[in-house]
């Protein structure tokens, strides 16, 4: 039996009176590339924000399974309104923070690119590698090497090695993503398509188990999109990833995904293999409108 890496159960998110996501349940198998599609405003990005802990759930729960046993990564806020419930929410309710979830092994890219704009391409990825080094704050206050040389002081050899490992990892990732030659450029000066790739590189720096891609091909031309398709498959195999992808390029989705979940107005519309989805009259109607 295959492991279910991510399981969403009855996931609901309401903003005031508006139900952005209503009663969505699905699970993703290990190693799968799972597509999440739907018209604009269907709640796809909201689901990403719920999985990564940016929003708290209104109802339902989300489990993440790295191997042994499922971990509850997001749970519903059980408190209602009122003064004492507010107090409880402030002091008792402890949902997992986005950073905790990222550390567990779920990382993401953003639909409206969120790079560290003023940093170089290299620094963007180097920063994201931070979990691979373990040195603490106090030790980081001190110089580790003889000034103007590369010779570490004996007591700081371990830290220097860790920092070197971070740099090596950054180099590997940038080369893999074809960004090595742009390493000195400011992230905001990169062309759009490469910025999206840089976001993927940054997300991979944490050695995730599950990678969430939010419209990675937006703004890319057809050749670039095709190259991206191969790249996603390549990184999936290389890093043993499971991928959840939101995308509007139907070519990409149909050729890439093993299974697809279709959302419409925050609700379930269809789920299945690309071939099933392509022929599904409801899906066609949601995308193209009903024929008179």
């Amino acid at each position, binding site marked *: 039996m295959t492991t279910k890496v991510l399981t969403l159960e009855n996931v609901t998110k309401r903003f005031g009176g508006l139900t952005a996501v209503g009663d969505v349940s699905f699970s993703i198998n290990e190693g799968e590339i799972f597509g999440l599609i739907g018209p604009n405003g269907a709640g796809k990005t909201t689901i990403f924000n719920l999985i990564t802990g*940016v929003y708290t759930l209104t109802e339902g729960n989300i489990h993440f399974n790295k191997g042994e046993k499922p971990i509850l990564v997001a749970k519903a806020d059980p408190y209602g309104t009122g003064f004492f419930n507010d107090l409880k929410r402030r002091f008792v309710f402890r949902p997992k923070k986005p*950073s905790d979830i990222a550390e567990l092994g779920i990382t993401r890219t953003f639909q409206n690119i969120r790079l*560290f704009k003023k940093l170089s391409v290299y620094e963007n990825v180097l*920063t994201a590698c931070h979990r691979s*080094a373990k040195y603490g704050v106090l030790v980081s206050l001190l110089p580790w090497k003889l000034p103007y040389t590369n010779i570490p002081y004996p007591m700081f050899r371990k830290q220097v090695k860790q920092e070197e490992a971070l740099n090596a990892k950054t180099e590997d990732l940038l080369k893999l993503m074809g960004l090595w030659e742009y390493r000195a450029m400011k992230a905001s000066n990169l*062309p759009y398509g490469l910025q999206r790739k840089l976001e993927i590189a940054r997300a991979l720096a944490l050695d995730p188990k599950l990678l969430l891609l939010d419209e990675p091909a937006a703004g890319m031309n057809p050749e670039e999109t095709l190259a991206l398709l191969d790249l996603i498959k390549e990184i999936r195999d290389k890093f043993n990833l499971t991928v959840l992808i939101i995308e509007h390029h139907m070519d990409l989705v149909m050729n890439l995904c093993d299974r697809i979940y279709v959302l419409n107005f925050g609700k379930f519309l269809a789920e299945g293999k690309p071939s099933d989805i392509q022929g599904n009259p409801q899906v066609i109607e949601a995308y193209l409108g009903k024929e008179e």
Partner: protein
Amino acid sequence: MAWYYLEGILILCGINVMVVLGLSLLTGFTGLFSFGHAGFMAIGAYVSASLTTMLHWPFIPAVVAGGLVAMLMSFIIGGLTLNLKGDYFCIATLGFGEAIRLILNNVQTFGGARGMASIPLKSSLVAVYAFVIIGVIFMWFLIRSRHGRNMVAIREEELAAQAIGINVFRYKMLSLAASALYAGIGGALWAHYLTFINPAMFMLTKSTEMTIMVIIGGLGSITGSIVGTFFLTFLPEAFREFADWRMVVYGAAVIAVMALRPQGLLGGIEFSPKGIIKWITTSGKSKKAQVKTPVEGGKA
């Protein structure tokens, strides 16, 4: 210029550098803005002065203790506000700075509004610069470590920082605590240089003056902050007759810097002997070498 006079200004520069280094970390590298650092300076000053005058502690432990108490205070402010979205932190520091001053004004143990006098004169040039050099070294290497990079990531894009596993609250707190420690030590050194302190010295204006030094020097640059501090500490000495207009010019300068050159004088670039040599040898060529013919199209 008499050496005695110059020495005095250099000591003041050193004390200001201490406070500004902390603020540089907080504002320039982590992207948080505080109106309350005069409050942390006040805590450092009053704690250390009480320790040396009332309990006869030696100078250095008293200064460090002053810094540590200021840091403890920062945990309260930060713990309450740094995990909230919005300008809560800013407003809380504003209230904090004023509250500290008001409390000191009313506590007679510390002399009330008259403050404390006959504090031993201990902040010699050597003592102050010993603190400054250690402070610069610590800050310099902290910024270059993974922890420093994480703080910069928070400044650049908080959501993305969370998404790559950075505990935003923890790093903001770390940055605030470190800056409070530096401000506390700066305040303690100040008290032992002037030999008297009173609550009016730690008004909101003091906080903003320190922040201005960071901004003029350049957000995100330690050497910039140091250069900015020296520049703005010496400048008023040269133009004493225009003392009233000094702050007017500062205010206008801050607006102009933000509108025209937000990176400040040095803006994110650090001075280092190595860098200067490199700059001289490759000047002119360096820019071309860096920009790899980018592919056309796309926007940020």
